[in-house]
């Protein structure tokens, strides 16, 4: 069952990602990204990352993507769709793509020696949420506080940027 679910979620993820990078209409791109993120959330679940699954949906899909959609709607869509869609850097991109595919090929060929198959996730070994919480608030206390600082800076910066543009040009 796990394998089937893996394929399903992987397919959703990749299809969404493909839509994101190929669709012309930014709203469709965003929708593709939403599905891709949901697929990734499912994959998190398959790997016993219960809390991350919920956080991915709550924060990424429900928060960041709403912001994206708002911004897309804030600026003229017709104009966005009329843009030439692909940039001039395509030779670089092709090279990069080739490199990554090579890497994947090598990976697939070697089959990642030394890595045993994943353990079957057991339920409630102390509870995923509890374990993360313990670790987060003890071991990672400092990054946790740093995150709040980052958020503060981000919000101040974003508001400042959003405000700045009122000044007449």
């Amino acid at each position, binding site marked *: 069952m796990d394998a089937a679910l893996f394929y399903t979620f992987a397919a959703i993820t990749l299809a969404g990602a493909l839509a994101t990078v190929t669709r012309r209409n930014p709203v469709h791109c965003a929708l593709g990204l939403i599905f891709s993120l949901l697929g990734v959330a499912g994959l998190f679940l398959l790997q016993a990352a219960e809390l991350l699954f919920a956080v991915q949906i709550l924060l990424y899909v429900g928060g960041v993507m709403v912001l994206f959609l708002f911004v897309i709607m*804030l600026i003229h869509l017709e104009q966005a769709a009329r843009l030439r869609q692909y940039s001039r850097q395509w030779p670089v991109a092709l090279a990069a793509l080739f490199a990554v595919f090579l890497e994947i090929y090598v990976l697939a060929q070697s089959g990642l020696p030394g890595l045993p198959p994943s353990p079957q996730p057991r339920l409630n070994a102390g509870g995923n949420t509890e374990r993360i919480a313990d670790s987060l608030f003890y071991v990672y206390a400092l990054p946790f506080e740093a995150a709040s600082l980052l958020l503060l800076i981000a919000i101040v910066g974003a508001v400042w940027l*959003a*405000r700045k*543009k*009122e000044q007449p040009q």
Partner: protein
Amino acid sequence: MTNHLETSEMLLNMGPQHPSTHGVLRLVLKLDGERVKAVECVIGYLHRGVEKIGENRTYMQFAPYVDRMDYISAVSNGLGYCLAVEQLIGAEAPPRAQIVRVLFAELNRIASHLLWLGTSALDLGAMTALFYTMREREEVLKIFENYCGARLTTHAFRIGGLQYELHDTFEAETRAFSEMFKKRLDEYEKLLTKNPIWVERLKGVGILTAEECKSYAVSGPMLRAAGVNWDLRKAQPYSGYEQFDFEIPVLHGADSYDRYRIRIEEMRQSLRIIDQALERIPSGAIMAKVPKVLKPAPGEVYVSIEAPKGELGYYIVSDGSLHPYRLRVRPPSFVNLASLEKMAVGALVADVVAIIGTIDIVLGEVDR
């Protein structure tokens, strides 16, 4: 903080087919987000040429037409028209008819205010009030029906007095209504007056100061909510209003909330008038001596009364023939509606709904 991109404004048609424009008023709103930048009233969807029809009918024939203007308060329309024609021909309704006219006009004022209260509350999302007010309005309409057979466009009065004698149960019915309605009014107030959301929605919304009211020639409850003590029933008493002891409610907020409170208070005062009138209905004739064929001497007359929505005036010019040479109506809704732009610019879409509601318009009267 002008926190906006250079938004290309959205042009939004509100009406003619919109749930809260009370008929077929069309507003073209220029919106920035939800804020109204400009508003343009487009009227005329219900235009029937009532005034022109008046020039092609005899004075008697035209009387039922006036009911179709402000169909919510048809009695007041009829009263104004009858008074105007009576003045033109130099007749006066007998005392009994006058008192009965006052009774019906005040009942109609209550019915009109009730409908206003219900619908504008519904516009603000308070749906329950509508059903309560409709229930009470029904009682008024029943009285009308028992009197003349019609509920809405009553054509209750005739030039020179009344067509019908009061029906037997009229006094009992009206007294019962008055008793019941006093309590119901308190109920409405309990539901709305102190309701924090209701207050928030109306306070400070659609302010039209006394000067602005005067410059727009606004009349009726809107004017009195702006602190101007002007009510034709007191200022130029007609049909015997001078005999009654009642007050003209005046408030100073000049906003929608005070308009609401004025109307509620007016209903109370109307009840006072009704109670007094019931006590002193004189006996006697109900019809003055009026010629069968009306052919007024050449001349002109302007008579205005205090309709529920404001000053309702009739300007009639006679050239001595069977038909009026010119007939012009000053409809309160139409004049009051002109102030919408002043009030709505800068407000939110939801406020526009509240403002239209508290102007209290009837499109039949605006478009005529």
